[in-house]
């Protein structure tokens, strides 16, 4: 757990109010394949980039496919504008939980617990921050970019998507360089193509990455090969989000870590590989 402590020590962990609270939906925007849900959270603190919330619908959580969902679902906070009490979440419909949440409309309520977990740490020894995102994994990068201005000027974000419908999400970050699998938008290929080109140009960066496991492993391998530090926001199946169930572990050099309390942001150096 030492490595995790290091990460933790470099970021101010914002604590969650105890328990689950209701948050009314204030807006719902469609961005291609994604939906952005906004809710009002007056009782909650402003989260740090990389932190997440456990979300469920206050009504009808259950009764979907296989009569699921039953457990809450984890979502990175995508934006938390400091001049509002709003939280923004980015959702992709991949199953009964995200499907139900995407249905929510103005007036409906979320149940939320959070902010949870360790967010991103500041770049090490004056490196510039380079944001690399894949698919719905762009969410924590958006809030990093918004707040990142304060801590270090960031480079142009590199984002990868499946196709044009998903690439519509790119507009959620400022001035992103995009790659798509089908080439319908930007570079045809993987976001790691863009990353290695960028690292050729300037290796004095620290990478902040979030996306599917395959992409994160490619980023990890690339960065370790170039001795570039990286912070990876991982995902794993979670039941509770606050360390209660021991269900969300990921293998690290230090053994299994509970991603919800020792992550979700891990230092790439902690990982043998992303699975």
């Amino acid at each position: 757990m030492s490595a995790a402590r290091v990460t933790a020590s470099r970021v101010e962990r914002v604590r969650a109010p105890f328990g689950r609270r209701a948050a009314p939906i204030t807006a719902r925007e469609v961005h291609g394949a994604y939906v952005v849900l906004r809710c009002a959270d007056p009782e909650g603190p402003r989260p740090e980039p990389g932190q997440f919330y456990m979300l469920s619908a206050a009504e009808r959580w259950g009764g979907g496919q296989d009569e699921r969902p039953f457990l809450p679902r984890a979502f990175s906070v995508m934006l938390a504008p400091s001049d509002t009490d709003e939280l923004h979440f980015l959702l992709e419909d991949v199953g009964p939980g995200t499907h139900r949440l995407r249905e929510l409309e103005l007036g409906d309520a979320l149940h939320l617990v959070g902010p949870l977990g360790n967010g991103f740490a500041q770049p090490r020894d004056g490196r510039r921050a380079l944001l690399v995102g894949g698919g719905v994994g762009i969410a924590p990068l958006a809030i990093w970019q918004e707040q990142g201005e304060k801590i270090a000027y960031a480079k142009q974000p590199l984002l990868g998507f499946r196709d044009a419908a998903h690439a519509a999400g790119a507009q959620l970050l400022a001035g992103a360089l995009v790659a798509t699998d089908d080439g319908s938008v930007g570079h045809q290929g993987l976001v790691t193509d863009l990353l290695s080109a960028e690292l050729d140009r300037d290796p004095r960066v620290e990478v902040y990455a979030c996306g599917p496991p395959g992409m994160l492993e490619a980023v990890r391998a690339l960065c370790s090969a170039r001795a570039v530090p990286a912070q990876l926001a991982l995902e794993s199946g979670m039941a509770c989000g606050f360390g209660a169930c021991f269900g969300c572990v990921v293998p690290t050099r230090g053994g299994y870590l509970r991603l919800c309390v020792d992550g979700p942001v891990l230092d790439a150096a902690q990982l043998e590989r992303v699975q």
Partner: protein
Amino acid sequence: MSVEFCGIELEHPVINASGTFDAIAAHRAFGDELLEQFPFAAFVSKTVTLAPRQGNPPPRLWELAGGMLNSIGLPNKGLRGYLAEDLPRLAELPVPLIVNVMGFGRDEVAELVSAFAEREEVAAVELNVSCPNVETGLVMGADEREIDRLLRRVRPLTDKPLVVKLTPNASDVPAVARAAEAAGASALSLINTIRGMAFDPRSGEPWLGGVTGGVSGPAVRAIALAQVHAVCDAVEIPVVGMGGVQSGADAADLLLAGARIIAVGTESFRDPAAGLRVASELSQLGANGGNPALRGGVLGPASGGS
């Protein structure tokens, strides 16, 4: 609605189910608010084994209709790590501490029980003889002779209350309960998770890293109720009822079945403060007499001061 349990005075009849709430991790997540409104009348720690355990490889979770399947595999720091790192911090909780232990064989259980015998911080010891994810857990808890031998061995080692946590995966749970009572158990707790399994819809391989796991949550509620009812009919000692409790009404059912107090497990994953909610719903039911279990009735004998 305070309750007496094995000589321990509890502010209300709701505690946590072992392994479903980590007070230390929760304190990291929620800060001191957790301590100010601690959700349980007593805290039961996750199962401690003699040697440290990494637990089962992921994935460890699968969601079910009205419940979940877990194959956590009892990860823990081991007795030494627990005594050194966790116990001092758990001793600071505002409620009594119950330590849940499991040993691979009687000698290990004896060593674990002895280790806590002299610790003031520990109000009671719960023996996990029922974890469906670890072979021996099943064996001891499913067989009355094994339980008899185990308790005759460890009962003399401590004056603290010994709570035996029964396995639901047994032919005759009341028989095991009677054996535990006869051999000196101070109380019984049930149900533990019920063995279950799921396949990865994509690969067709078992989903869980541990292959099989344990089912918990509302899906097991009716089964838990039947087992608690049968066990309470079979013994005189107090029983901790658990299994799928989500509301005060669910808790009241377990009290009706004969439980002295109840435990909340999986529901805490959905609502970290579920323990508080269940306790207040329970006292509401008592107040407006909504449920006969609470109209003086069941809680009567157990209820103390308030």
